[in-house]
């Protein structure tokens, strides 16, 4: 007992000493001697002027550096943008050339592509095409031939539309229902199912195409648009993104709606869908461009040349038709670009949210 008390006493004393020492630090700090104390006012003035000048110089240099870096950055960004735009730009420019000019200018390229001569399958001509900012003569000739004289083109365009629109709409409906379920009902087995959806989404079509073909064969769908539309509708990509989105809806919203007596359907249509509006628009754009782009599926599943979409048709344009090829490409690009212009904000927002947990 005694030793205990002793210890406590010692501890108290130590504590006191420490406190006092700390106080000393705060109260008895010596004012440091600076070199300004020994300077006369004039000297001080001069010193400060010098320092100010030096600081100004440093600041200026730093500002210059920042400006230069910024300039460099802008230059890089502009370069990247130019590279991004040049191919698109030239497709449009070339689409306003007359067919004769295109033949004249780009004929060389397509000769070498169709493999006329040469051991490497290329002709060894000295001429190379010139990229012109403005065609020699701006005409709508290509577009005219394309729209009024080649029904095949319009047919293919229509084929593309007839395949893409049902896929986009169907997949959005199916996926929004499914992802609502995945977002609200989170049991172990469902999570496993969801994970298998993710795996399916990640499968390249090199894998899924064969199964697609087999089932289409079983259902006698080969060579009909349904063989492409049906698997497209049930593709799991949008399920994944929408589920990610719907899980971000605060559960308090849903609880509140439930307390007010809302049914699941009401929660789905009045809360879940409106909150995911931008995601749905973004998905619609992404899906549209993805399926507008498709090449593999029609190549394998549609054997009838008449039913091929424009994307496949464009790749088979040969030398004789290059006069209209650019206009065809440009026209094919336009729906996608228009949709992009219309929904860029949604797209950016949708993409941005998809990456954030």
């Amino acid at each position, binding site marked *: 007992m005694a030793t205990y008390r002793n210890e406590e006493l010692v501890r108290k004393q130590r504590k006191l000493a420490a406190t006092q020492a700390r106080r000393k630090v705060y109260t008895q700090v010596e004012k440091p001697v600076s070199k300004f104390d020994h300077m006369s006012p004039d000297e001080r003035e001069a010193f400060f002027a010098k320092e100010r000048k030096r600081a100004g110089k440093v600041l200026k240099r730093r500002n210059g550096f920042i400006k230069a870096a910024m300039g460099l950055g802008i230059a890089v960004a502009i370069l990247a943008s130019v590279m991004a735009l040049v191919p698109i730009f030239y497709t449009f420019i070339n689409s306003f050339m007359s067919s004769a000019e295109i033949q004249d200018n780009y004929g060389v390229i397509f000769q070498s592509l169709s493999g006329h001569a040469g051991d490497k399958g290329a002709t060894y001509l000295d001429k190379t095409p010139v990229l012109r900012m403005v065609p020699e003569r701006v005409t709508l000739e290509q577009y005219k031939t394309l729209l009024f004289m080649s029904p095949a083109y319009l047919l293919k365009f229509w084929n593309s539309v007839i395949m893409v629109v049902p896929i986009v709409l169907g997949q959005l409906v199916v996926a929004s229902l499914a992802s609502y379920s995945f977002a609200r009902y989170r049991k172990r087995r469902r999570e496993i199912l969801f994970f298998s959806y993710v795996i399916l989404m990640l499968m390249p079509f090199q894998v899924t195409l064969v199964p697609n073909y087999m089932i289409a064969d079983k259902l006698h769908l080969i060579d009909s648009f349904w063989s492409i539309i049906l698997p497209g509708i049930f593709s799991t990509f949008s399920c994944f993104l929408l589920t990610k989105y719907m899980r971000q809806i605060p559960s308090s919203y849903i609880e509140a709606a439930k307390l007010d007596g809302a049914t699941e359907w009401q929660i789905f249509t009045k809360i879940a869908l409106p909150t995911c509006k931008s995601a749905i628009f973004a998905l619609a754009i992404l899906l549209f461009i993805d399926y507008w782009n498709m090449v593999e599926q029609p190549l394998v599943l549609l054997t009838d040349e008449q039913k091929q979409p424009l*994307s496949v048709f464009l790749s088979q344009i040969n030398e004789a038709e290059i006069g209209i090829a650019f206009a065809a490409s440009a026209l094919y690009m336009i729906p996608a670009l228009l949709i992009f212009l219309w929904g860029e904000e949604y797209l950016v927002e949708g993409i941005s949210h998809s990456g954030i947990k």
Partner: protein
Amino acid sequence: MSEKQQQRGEVLLKRSELNKQKKRLHRRRKILDWGVFTGYLLPSLLGVFLFFFMPLLMLLKTSFQKSSTNTDFVGFTNYTRVITNGAFKDASINTLTFALIAVPLAIVLALLIALLLNSGMPGKSIFRSILLNPMMVPVASIVLIWQVFFSYNGVINGWLGNLFGLDKIDWLKSSYAQIVILIMFIWKNLGYNMVLFLAALNNIPTEVIESAKMDGAGPVKRFFAIKMHYLSSTIFFVGIMSLINSFKIFREVYLLTGDYPFDTLYMLQHYMNNAFRHLDYSRLSSGAIIMCIVMIIIVGFLFFAEAKFGGDIEE
């Protein structure tokens, strides 16, 4: 006393009955919930089952059969036939090398551009939409202009010849072909990846960056010590997306060079297409199964890596 006990017993009885009722209700609610949400899931589930799961099982079955007409069980002969096939080997090596080069490059370049745009330079949103533009352009319509640039008598060769007096390079039919395809891949996917990174960069709390600045961390240190930490899950996501997209590069290759491109461009999809044309289903299905397994391994590894290294990001 006994009255009190009786009362207590009654209360207990009531409570247990109530509990029972509650439990029953709860169970009913649970079943109802299950029913409702399964109902929501049903259309998708049916479709996925019919068009993806079942065919995959069929695939598994045919991969062990002699041919689509002859259903004899032949064990792993199809697999060994596919694996020892030179074309399949080349195709998978090409596809994998392309993914291994393209995915990191796409990540790094997009990150650099995103950092650049995020450094407070003017016109950020304009650059963003310009760079996002290529994503929207259908491959089929841009292929023409790529041909103009990269074919043997193309524009690039013309420029190189005029400016540096270089010999013509047959870009698409030489070992440069992968570089050309790489350029197209980056051109197309840079914008998408960049937007993802921009969003992630915007999500980093400014206080953290500010305080690091106060503590005297330079831009490089700030990037590696702080931003990388916050970006890691986005990097993972971008990696997965780029991986998926890198498998889609077949489109460009096919549209540029057709069924039988230069050796280094022979992708797995070419192999598949050609097998289709020969109607060799058993070869096809074992090839697809092998790819499926490889994909699952890659994805599993990525998820594992993310869980291991990205786990501490979530606050």
